[in-house]
């Protein structure tokens, strides 16, 4: 790990920037701030930070446009900040290359977890066997074990679980999952996905109605929670 990872915050609210600076600095990150989209893009280019936190509601540009522009060259994680009740914006941002999102008001602990999760993917290679408490997923042999017992999954169920688990702690949108697992034809059929997730939960969760691993992000998608 680098000594001091750089994080760029693009948000027009000074109080949010101050809060993030204090919290994230305390967690060992080096923080840079921009209050406008223009400054943000300039700083991103000159600093090349390892994570960008981008507010969707910026005064001088649509946050989504900023995201698209950044994604033309910026390959590290971008985490979106947004207000509640704007699932459509969030989904659009996620489908346009954002790695994760948080709605205001958010918990700083949650933000730190998201930053870590977003970084994880870019840091190391995937293991062949993923272990999350009682759940073991053997990616090479297509095997899933709960409490060391083999659980029978259909191939679609396995692909779905593997996709989510490989992206541990990251939110994946409905359309992304559908495209990855079923192909483009199903991209607008979140119903199918929900049925499969429900079925998967029954097989791998201890209490399917209080899932530990497969977390619903209502209106957006699913997140696999490892801990």
């Amino acid at each position, binding site marked *: 790990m680098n000594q001091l990872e750089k994080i760029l915050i693009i948000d027009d609210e000074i109080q949010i920037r101050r809060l993030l600076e204090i919290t994230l600095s305390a967690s060992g990150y080096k923080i840079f701030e921009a209050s406008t989209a223009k400054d943000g893009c300039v700083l991103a280019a000159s600093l090349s930070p390892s994570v960008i936190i981008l507010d969707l509601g910026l005064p001088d540009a649509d946050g989504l446009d900023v995201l698209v522009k950044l994604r033309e060259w910026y390959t590290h994680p971008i985490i979106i900040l947004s207000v*509640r*009740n704007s699932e459509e914006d969030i989904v659009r941002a996620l489908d346009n290359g954002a790695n994760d999102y948080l709605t205001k*008001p958010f918990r700083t602990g949650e933000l730190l977890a998201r930053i870590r999760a977003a970084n994880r993917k870019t840091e190391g290679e995937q293991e062949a066997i993923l272990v999350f408490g009682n759940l073991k997923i053997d990616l090479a042999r297509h095997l899933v074990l709960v409490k060391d017992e083999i659980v029978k999954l*259909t*191939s*679609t*169920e396995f692909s779905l679980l593997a996709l989510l688990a490989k992206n541990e702690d990251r939110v994946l949108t409905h359309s992304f999952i559908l495209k990855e697992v079923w192909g483009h034809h199903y991209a607008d059929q*979140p*119903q*199918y996905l*929900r*049925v*499969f*997730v*429900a*079925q998967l939960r*029954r097989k791998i969760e201890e209490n*399917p*109605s*209080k*899932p530990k691993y497969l977390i*619903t992000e*209502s*209106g957006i998608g699913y997140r696999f929670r490892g801990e």
Partner: protein
Amino acid sequence: MKRQFSSPWYEYLIVVLIVVVSTMICYFISDLVGYRVLSFVLLFVVSILAFIYGTGPVLLASSLSALIWNFFFIPPHYTLHISNTEDLLMFVMFFIVALLNGVLTSQVRHRESIIKQREERTQALYQLTKSLLEESDVDELKKMIVSGIRKYFHIDSFVFLLEDINAVALKKDDNIAFIPPNEIDAMIDCFNKSESGGRFFSLYKNNRYSYYPMTGSHMKTGMIVLQHQNKFTDDEMQFWEAYLSQISGRFEREMLNSIAQKAFILDESDKLYKTLFNSISHEFRIPVTTILGATDTLMSEEYSVEIQQQLLAEINIASIRLNQLIENLLNISRLESGHLTLRTNWYDFHDLIDKVTNTLKQELQHYNLIVNIPDDLPMIKIDFGLIEQAMHNLLLNITQYVPQNTDILIDVQLSEDVLKIKLIDQGPGFSPDNIAHVFDKFYRGKSAKTGGTGLGLSIVKGFIEAHKGQVIAYNHPSRGAVFEIEIPVEISNINYIEKLS
């Protein structure tokens, strides 16, 4: 009685022609019958004419036929001279009888037509009153009035209500392209002056249309524009005024109604905002005071870690409360705005309950929560956000009234295509006087903990009703309160994985 002589010129021509033709016929039969008989024939013709034509033509016909009879048939022929005293008497009498006959008949006819017209007008006014009362849609009313004026006055017309005039004055209305702008300006001016104007009036007399203000007993309600070619006779004017006053009265009532309604709505929302402001400002102050106080203390002196932690916990609670408050305010304004649109999609109800109980983890930690949802509950189509908020508010409400270390049961069932959700607690239940008000805005039960605006349950009701469902509250026969929700839902057919994989 001007009307008696107002027969058109062609009627005079026709009676002259008829008299001439009758004379010719008489001339041919004059050899067969005596000339005195011919006088009866001519009298007969005049009498017939009196039934058809006005007084003027009949007078002409009787004079003409008297002269013709004298000139052609009374000997000596082809002179106006009458030698025989008897014939002279006959001629004078013929003349008088023809005149009387013609005048009297046409007068009788005229009276009859006046009576008939009056009857028609009474009928027209009656019809108008009746249909004005029956029709409630303003646009339909306008159409009806235009067609009524066409029927009874044979005139094309346009009806402009106050709002139309305002729209026209602001040049916002595109539907008036058929009336030239100068006419519109004149109409607006007449409306402002509350005077009739346009053609046949001193005001704007060179314009093509006439404008009549609709004036009720309290207010002006609009204008009627008439496109008439002839000036109204006194008679017609009277009828028109009666007609107009009926219409004005009707629109006035309509306007007074809508004003009263608006006043009521304003009054209601005024009340709402006053209550909202009073209760909200109070509600905001408490957590803000907590945060300010706690942060002041934290900044001013060194305290033990334990006290610091306690103060931070207080700040945390206050912030959550503030957030809750904002959420409720946003929701109530969504409901109050009147155009809450559902964004429905397919959801698993397990997810919803899971999410709600997760968000309320802290509040629920001292209760024994029992969730009872059938495993095979199919996907249902709902607005996740709204139902989530409704369930959230209900559960939060329960934690405010119900003592800790008791059971809270969430029971979800689907029967046919109605989703039934029951929340049962083991608290004190509702008191008889508040059970009817639990869903009222700003109503707060007497045993409520401090905090809360009394908006939570009214939001529940609003969101459930937005789903065409209903929510009721009652006391459990043994102990505690029950909230029961029923929402008609669409059920997904895609529920069996086997078919898909």
